[in-house]
């Protein structure tokens, strides 16, 4: 699946393991949270990079204790109108200091890329061909003036005093 990261499409180093599929703990795999919770023993000895897929509706508290074990968190966007992952992303970045890859998977469309970036996502699995075509031209539509702090953003001159870079 095309992966957009840091302004271009890149080779995906990760393999996504679908729900219910067997696998060995080889590393660089993205597994469902339930799988991780059931099979974590197998990973505890290996210390390979592991990614976890979080469906909307799963509370951060359900996996926050293991955060340091994850090199990647994939947040599922079932429909582009579903905004839950935006809050989860900000919490992971700003409150819990998650430094790994934060990947948006599901219905990720071109007009949502900018707000997702501002909430701390840094990687996007793109399935929509129009979005893919637009991103290939290097175009991420959006605005350039913001009234709120964004994750990892330096404020622009003239911006509001409470608009400060989020603590990382």
């Amino acid at each position, binding site marked *: 699946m095309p992966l957009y990261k840091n302004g271009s499409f890149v080779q995906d180093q990760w393999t996504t393991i679908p729900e219910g599929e067997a696998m060995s703990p080889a590393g660089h795999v993205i597994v469902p949270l339930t799988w991780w919770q059931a099979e974590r023993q197998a990973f505890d000895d290996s210390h390979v990079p592991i990614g976890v897929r979080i469906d909307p509706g799963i509370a951060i508290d359900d996996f926050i204790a293991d955060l340091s074990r994850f090199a990647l968190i994939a947040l599922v966007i079932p429909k582009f109108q579903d905004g839950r992952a935006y809050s989860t992303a900000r919490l992971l970045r700003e409150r819990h200091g998650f430094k790994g890859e934060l990947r948006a998977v599901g219905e990720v469309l071109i*007009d949502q890329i900018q707000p997702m970036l501002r909430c701390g996502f840094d990687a996007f699995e793109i399935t929509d061909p129009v979005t893919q075509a637009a991103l290939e031209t290097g175009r991420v539509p959006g605005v*350039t003036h913001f*009234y709120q702090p964004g994750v990892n953003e330096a404020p622009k001159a003239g911006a509001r005093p409470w608009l400060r870079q989020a603590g990382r």
Partner: protein
Amino acid sequence: MYRYDEFDAAFVADRLNQFSDQVQRRLSGELTEEQFRIHRLMNGVYLQLHAYMLRIAIPYGTLSPRQLRKLAHIARRYDKGFGHFTTRQNIQFNWPALKDIPEILGELASVEMHAIQTSGNCIRNVTADHFAGAAADEIEDPRPYAEILRQWSSIHPEFTYLPRKFKLALSGSPHDRAAIQVHDIGYQLVKNDKGETGFAVYVGGGLGRTPMVGHKIRDFLPTKDLLAYTQAIVRVYNLEGRRDNKYKARIKILVHEKGFEAMRAAVEAEFEADKSELLALPQSEVERISAYFAPPALPERAAQSQALETRRASDHAFAAFVDVNVSKHRQAGYGLLTISLKPIGGIPGDATAEQMELVAELAEKFGHDEIRVSHEQNLVLPHVALDDLPAVYDALAAQGLATANAGLISDIISCPGMDYCSLATARSIPVAQRISERFADGPRAKDIGGMKIKISGCINACGHHHVGHIGILGLERKGVETYQLTLGGSGDESCTLGDITGPGFSYEDVVDAIETVVDTYIGLRSTPDEDFLSAYRRVGMAPFKKALYERDSGSEI
């Protein structure tokens, strides 16, 4: 009033470019209608029964004469010569062509206005008391805080895809004229026992299909925490609010299903966990924004106006107008003038381009350049010298704007109903017109006293019928319009939802039913000063029910 700086102006220009690009991509087929819909709504563009409708924000209901003239210009050039002021301090144009909309938005940007977030599942136009900055009972002007909320919520990256729309309202006075308890979040400015200013915060109010009165979640929130606390509430809602059913997606349902105490605990925990202080409002910034809302320098005047008293003595119509439409200003010798957009038999909330231009002119000549739009769909000149009222009255009367019915029975809130709206199940405007004609604005209306009638043409309740002293809900039963009545609702600080009288009434009979309610009230009130709401709260539904359903006419359905 607030003036855009370079940053604000650049932001609105940015947004206009973004939307124009989205329109282009829709036209080229890159965006599907479903994908485009969400963007068009977040820029105020609806597809209505007959045409596109453009809803323009009037943040916290404050307008300058220049802005009102621009709205008049838009009405004349792009619409049919009038606009419709709504219950959320917006103005709607019902007939613009889609191709003209970017140009209209450009015209609006030239006077520091926009249509951003007047629709969509995001934080909507922030509303406030239309008497703010002038009311005699005010603790502090709520508009600087409303402006801060407006800025912070504009294209908020985290809160643009909420489960459902989200409405904020603020009041600076103990007497709530902004209906804050029927908003998703309501903020009431209060003083604590140390004399500090803060907010009492209400959450989970709303009307619509499942009306609920908001719960007080905070007795006192320091003003500096306004944004951080709001973020906590909206974040809990964004994460936990239902998304499986749009009719159960508002925060009121979350509060109801989760339980208010659990909701409060979740919000407080989220607020406590946010240690960043990123959103703490610097006092200097509150002061900077407050300076824009500094009251005009009003020259001292005698409390009693000779000019007014002389005219009053010789002109009954003028006397009635002053008695009914002028409210107490904080400064002696001045009044808050409500300009009723409820002419007898007219369409509630409509104003022609000529009327808008007249009000703009009067605001310049007599009103210190300020105009307000009330959620009751009227206009307000908040600072008029009592001495100038005769001249203002004469000018208004010449344009059909001197209806003396502010707060009376013919000052009706009505949704557009089946005449414009694609959701409506019954007509609302013609019902409002007939009630207005029945009771008018003469001595009978004055004798009835303070009375809020609110009409909705479907269960979505845009006409706020649940909080009408008398509420009317138009429904469709087997292809026939039927009107359900509720009594005893109130949207002020004593917020309550009205009680349903019983079976509904036909389109033909509903006005007679209202008259029965009114006559019953007149017959049972303890003194002429006991208003309808007080009387209803004292006696309850029984006498009204008896009068309505034990009539001989047999007209009930």
